């Protein structure tokens, strides 16, 4: 599988990152098999978080067995020093490892949170302390929030080494600043920061719960994912062609093998084909006014 430099971390990540949240819905034996399948496909970058149910625990056994083959990303949603330090220790215990390769601020949403993590006694103090004592090697940040906020974080956190954010044809088709994650890619690349893509496989929101109750949704994702092999291949190729480091699978375990296949077969996507994907997403999103042309 193709690898790319993860910013200036010195690590070359595979073009697919395994989102280990998928393990949460599997029994231990199934989780072990999935990790083996992911490693067999050549994936070398894993991502997990303490908020993904039992994912850390279920990743543990195979992670320990293959520790040297896996670049491990983990995260914390805590915003202050004490909370982050505590959560890091808890993740190390649950995963059963001595160190995490990439520790990320999880789900930054607001300017207040950015102020908090960067202030004295903020979460980043715990991250840096852990880096000094060797339990964490690199610092990252994840967000579904406003692209401006992520760019602001890049500007304000000098030692930030990776960012994780949404990117897919639906957001690329929208021109407003609220959806301009391409600007995040650009700034991150200027700064030598690794870029990890989430929501690459989102088709759109789920229908109203009146129409489709939550328990009847066919996938564990909180959005409606694309789920045909050709769509998964197209979405993967699109996301991986946006000048980013790596693309993370959707959380539902049923989709993981299709994404692995897409990642193994990925050979780039030319610009006319990328525009074609954006163009279909534009029309999916807005059926009116009625349009005959592209």
């Amino acid at each position, binding site marked *: 599988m193709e690898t790319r430099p993860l910013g200036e971390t010195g690590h070359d990540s595979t073009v697919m990152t395994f989102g280990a949240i998928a393990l949460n819905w599997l029994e231990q034996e199934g989780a072990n098999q999935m990790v083996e399948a992911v490693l067999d496909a050549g994936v070398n970058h894993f991502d997990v978080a303490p908020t993904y149910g039992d994912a850390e625990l279920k990743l543990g056994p195979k992670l320990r067995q293959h520790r040297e083959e896996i670049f491990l990303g983990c995260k914390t949603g805590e915003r202050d020093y004490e909370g982050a330090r505590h959560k890091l220790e808890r993740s190390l215990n649950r995963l059963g490892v001595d160190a995490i390769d990439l520790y990320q601020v999880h789900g930054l949403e607001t300017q207040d949170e950015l102020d908090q993590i960067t202030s004295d006694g903020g979460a980043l103090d715990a991250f840096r302390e852990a880096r000094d004592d060797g339990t964490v090697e690199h610092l990252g940040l994840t967000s579904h929030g406003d692209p401006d906020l992520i760019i602001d974080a890049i500007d304000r956190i000098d030692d930030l080494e990776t960012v994780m954010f949404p990117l897919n044809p639906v957001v690329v088709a929208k021109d407003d600043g609220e959806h301009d994650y391409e600007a995040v890619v650009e700034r991150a690349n200027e700064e030598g920061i690794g870029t990890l893509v989430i929501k690459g496989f989102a088709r759109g929101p789920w229908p109203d719960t009146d129409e489709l109750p939550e328990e009847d949704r066919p996938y564990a994702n909180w959005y409606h994912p694309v789920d045909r092999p050709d769509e998964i291949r197209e979405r993967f190729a699109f996301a991986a062609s946006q000048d980013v480091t790596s693309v993370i699978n959707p959380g539902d375990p049923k989709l993981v093998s299709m994404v692995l296949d897409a990642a193994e077969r990925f050979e780039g996507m*030319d610009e006319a084909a990328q525009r074609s994907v954006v*163009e279909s997403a534009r029309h999916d999103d807005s059926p009116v006014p009625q349009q*005959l042309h592209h």
Partner: protein
Amino acid sequence: MDVPETVRTALEDRPVEGAVCLEAGAGVGNTTAGLLEAGARRVYAVTNDSEHAGTVRERVGVSDPDRVIVVEADLRATPLPDDSVDVVTAHGLFNVVPTAILPEIAAELARVATPGAHLVVDDYDPLPDGAAMRDLFAVENAAAELADGAPTLTFYPAEMLRRLFAGYGWTFDCERTLLQPVPWTESHVAAHAELARESAASLPADLAEPLTTEIDRLVDDIGSESAGRMYSLAFRLGRET
């Protein structure tokens, strides 16, 4: 308003900034929006379809009334003076222009353009053999031929429009591929089927019925399809320099 990537790509290296532009066949205003975004001084959005004229006013004209002038006119005879436009665009226009009136439109666009003006023509190559959308377009054209004596759609190869405009004084500059494959989404399929049904509805029942049945069958059958190529041709008016 979101500008389609196709439009943005076609305009990206054209000198639109500060230019007086003519969008030939304004559609729903996508290219007009792209020209405004690229810094056009003024855009004449020309269409012979009053519904489209209203849509363009509503979607694009309202936010920029000083720069958008929606002109309801036939492209064979626009009310614009000679040598008055710096950039002419025709995005997805010529596939709805029957062959018989193609030369008159080409002549009119050359008339209103200033010497050295730029022309951008974006359209579709004929669909490849085996594309299901070809069948839908065939039925759409059959119904329109029977109803109005002219097809709804004609897909001109890039090479043909290139030579046509060369014959009206435009020097070819470059060609690029905007979309390949072209995504014919469910909403495109539905829109084309609707036009075909409208044509069929004006025919005697013994003609309308089989056409409508076939349209319904094709809509179910196709769903959506990615096939074909959308190209962009760029020209300058005048002799090669």
